[in-house]
């Protein structure tokens, strides 16, 4: 969208022999972002030295970050591929509701998990097919899903919060493994798998190509439509995983789950340095983006700040973070 920057003239002498590594500028951005995160942690520690950097609080923050983190992984793929997904929150709601109906719960935990994943994947694929084969712009197609999926979730649940009585499910997902909560393991795993998929497989590299120049990708023989559909499928699957996490955390499924996830996820991805116009981005940046918002929230709550002050501060901090991040990366870039 920031057309002025993007269309800036780029030309280059054939002369410079030093190969500019493709990642270096990105690395600097990430360093700036990490700086913002560390700064926030310092603020948290200074204001609440007794409780902020405790193991318990870190574990709490990470568990809070888990669901939105997983959704943001999927969102990163979508945005890198040049799209946008407004429906993630609604898909989380639908998957969480569908996986916790009495009927589903009766089949036991495995079926509940499969149900959430399948519902997420299916919704994502519907988005993908509408966008790639139906040629509906992503904003509109996922806006439609945004309305429909939540409506369906309300319909299925009768707008009741469905409590999970299936203890096998809650025991497992609310439990620990090697002293670390399962939710945090899941978050780590999704990030790791996402990272490998994005950076180490042909699928991931093609995602960059589709987002960077879809026509070039098509001419190079990539099935852009199928690829686009799959990317939204991945985003949907991530919503399914997030739904499992939300069910585990709240021991219930409700059509009100996942409210505002779309804004939170997009904000985390964009703060993380992924271009909204596609073709460029990192999952590490997204992870840091998610953590920044989580830490911010924790600081606010622990310091007993009013919601109104929280909101005002949030806006100011977003702007400050972006500006700070840019200044650091520019200063360093000048040095090299």
């Amino acid at each position, binding site marked *: 969208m920031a057309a002025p920057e993007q269309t800036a003239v780029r030309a280059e002498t054939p002369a410079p022999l030093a190969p500019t590594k493709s990642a270096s500028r990105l690395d600097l951005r990430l360093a700036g972002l990490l700086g913002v995160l560390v700064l926030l942690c310092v603020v948290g520690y200074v204001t609440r030295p007794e409780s902020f950097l405790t193991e318990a609080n870190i574990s709490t923050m990470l568990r809070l970050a888990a669901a939105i983190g997983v959704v943001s992984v999927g969102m990163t793929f979508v945005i890198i591929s040049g799209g946008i997904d407004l429906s993630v929150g609604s898909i989380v709601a639908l998957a969480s509701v569908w996986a916790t109906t009495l009927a589903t719960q009766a089949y036991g935990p495995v079926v509940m998990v499969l149900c959430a994943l399948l519902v997420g994947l299916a919704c994502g694929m519907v988005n993908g097919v509408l966008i790639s084969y139906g040629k509906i712009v992503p904003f509109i197609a996922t806006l439609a899903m945004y309305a429909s999926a939540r409506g369906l979730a309300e319909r299925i649940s009768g707008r009741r919060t469905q409590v999970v009585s299936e203890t096998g499910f809650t025991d497992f997902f609310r439990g620990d493994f090697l002293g670390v909560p399962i939710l945090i393991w899941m978050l780590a795993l999704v990030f790791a798998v996402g990272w490998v998929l994005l950076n180490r*497989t042909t699928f991931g590299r*093609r995602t960059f190509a589709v*987002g*960077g120049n879809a026509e*070039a990708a098509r*001419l190079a023989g990539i099935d852009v439509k199928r690829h686009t559909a799959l990317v939204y499928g991945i985003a949907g699957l991530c919503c399914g995983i997030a739904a499992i996490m939300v069910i585990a955390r709240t021991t219930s499924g409700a059509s009100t789950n996942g409210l505002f996830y779309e804004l939170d996820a997009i904000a985390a991805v964009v703060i993380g340095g992924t271009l909204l116009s596609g073709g460029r981005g990192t999952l590490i940046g997204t992870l840091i983006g998610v953590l920044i918002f989580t830490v911010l929230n924790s600081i606010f709550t622990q310091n007993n700040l009013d919601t109104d002050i929280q909101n005002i501060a949030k806006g100011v901090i977003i702007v400050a973070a972006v500006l700070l991040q840019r200044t650091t990366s520019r200063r360093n870039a000048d040095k090299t």
Partner: protein
Amino acid sequence: MRAISLVNQAAACEVSHQEEADLLLAMTGIGKSFPGVRALDGVDLVVEPGEVHCLLGQNGAGKSTLIKVLAGAHQPDEGEIRWQGEPVRLSSPVAALRLGVATMYQELDLVPGVSVAENIFLGHEPARFGFARKAAARTATAALMRRLGHPEIHPDREVGTLSAAGQQLVSMARALAHDARLIVMDEPTAALASDEVDNLFRIVAELTADGVAIVYISHRLEEIRRIGSRVTVIKDGRTVATGLPADTPTAELVDLMSGRKVETVFPHRDETTVDPTTEVLRVEGLSRRGEFADVGFTVHAGEIVGIAGLVGAGRSEILETIAGARRPDKGTVTVDGKRLRPGSVGAAVRAGVGLAPEERKSQALLLDLPLAHNVTLASLPAYSTAGYLDRAREHRDAKATLERLELRPADPRRLVGTFSGGNQQKAVVARWLVHGCRVLLLDEPTRGVDVGARAELYRLIRELAASGVAVVLVSSEVPEVLGLADRVLVLREGHVVADRPADDLTEAAVLDCVMEGHVMTGSAHALDPEEAI
């Protein structure tokens, strides 16, 4: 129309020894329509192994469309394609690539955000179980780049950070990576300087020696003379001649392409229109760190000053700085005795400076807007009272200007994006004509423009100068600079190394001056002046 001669002696001699008379590719009666346009209307193209088959035609004749059909990117409405005698259906780009047809498209078809290696192997990445084997791709890329004579282009480098010439090389490497039997090159030299062109031709020669066939598209006839085996001419979506020898006289080719007589490709200088008493543009001590330093010159009313130099010499940057699009570190620009505020395009435009930038699509045109809106973009205040537009007058003036430029069709309501390259370039010039500018800065005004349209542009530039405008012309084609300009500046690595009247210079002299001591000069074969007609 002249008779079509399919069998040609000269070409036959060059066909590689193993597959004597076997045709590699035969496209017959290809037709293709887009909404409202019949782009191809029965084109025939026959290619033999190991030849360089040149496609000629005016802007919009259908050359790129034809090769997109060949590449599987467009599906033809009718016609037959035979590959080594077998009828084939090229249903997708993959099908064509499998067959052995690799294509370098006219619009750079690269992904800017990813690395050189990934661009080259996009769609056919070396992989194991879906995991990309980056090391393998890197090694192969490095080898390809060495073969192309540019080992300094690192496989990990982001393609978006390369110059146009560098990107063209990556396109080339990608075509080579496919191990193709037929490589299609659509205007590969449009963004290249002469030494890079030599390098490209060296590789073409290597390929044809291996029996690879090349389909070559260019608007520069002298290139066709140098490497072409045979020529096919397309006009309005039809083949009008095929199998012509590469040394067919220019007049005859132009005649076939345009259906009318164009005397010369490059202009000959007439008597000068310079008014030495009125200095319009004065540039003094202009510098920008890392781009150019201490550039100074003056342009008088009616004068055309040409700037020659290698790609990357900083010519575009100088023009952009004069136009206020870049802020100079040092130095001043004076127009009609008034100093311009540095770094303000608005101030420059108000003072009467107009820039026709290098990349017309990304820097000059609003492809989705009507021609009239594009043409009046810089003169909006003149067409409005208190901000309210006088659309009737705007339309009238736009139309008059378009007719004066013989821009076809001169329909101001038509979207610019639907015009051919030459006509788009005229639209850019029309913008400054409507504005009534004092200084016109032209950056590569004839890139990708066909011979017929070129001649018209030259005439137009001359007319402008005659009306008292000061023109600065940047061009990579030395004969063009020499033919048009009254005075020539030669730029090397951001410094002016020569400033002389055009009459004192020959092409060889300019090229010598341009090349001398340049890092990249591997083989300094200058274009032979004889060849350039």
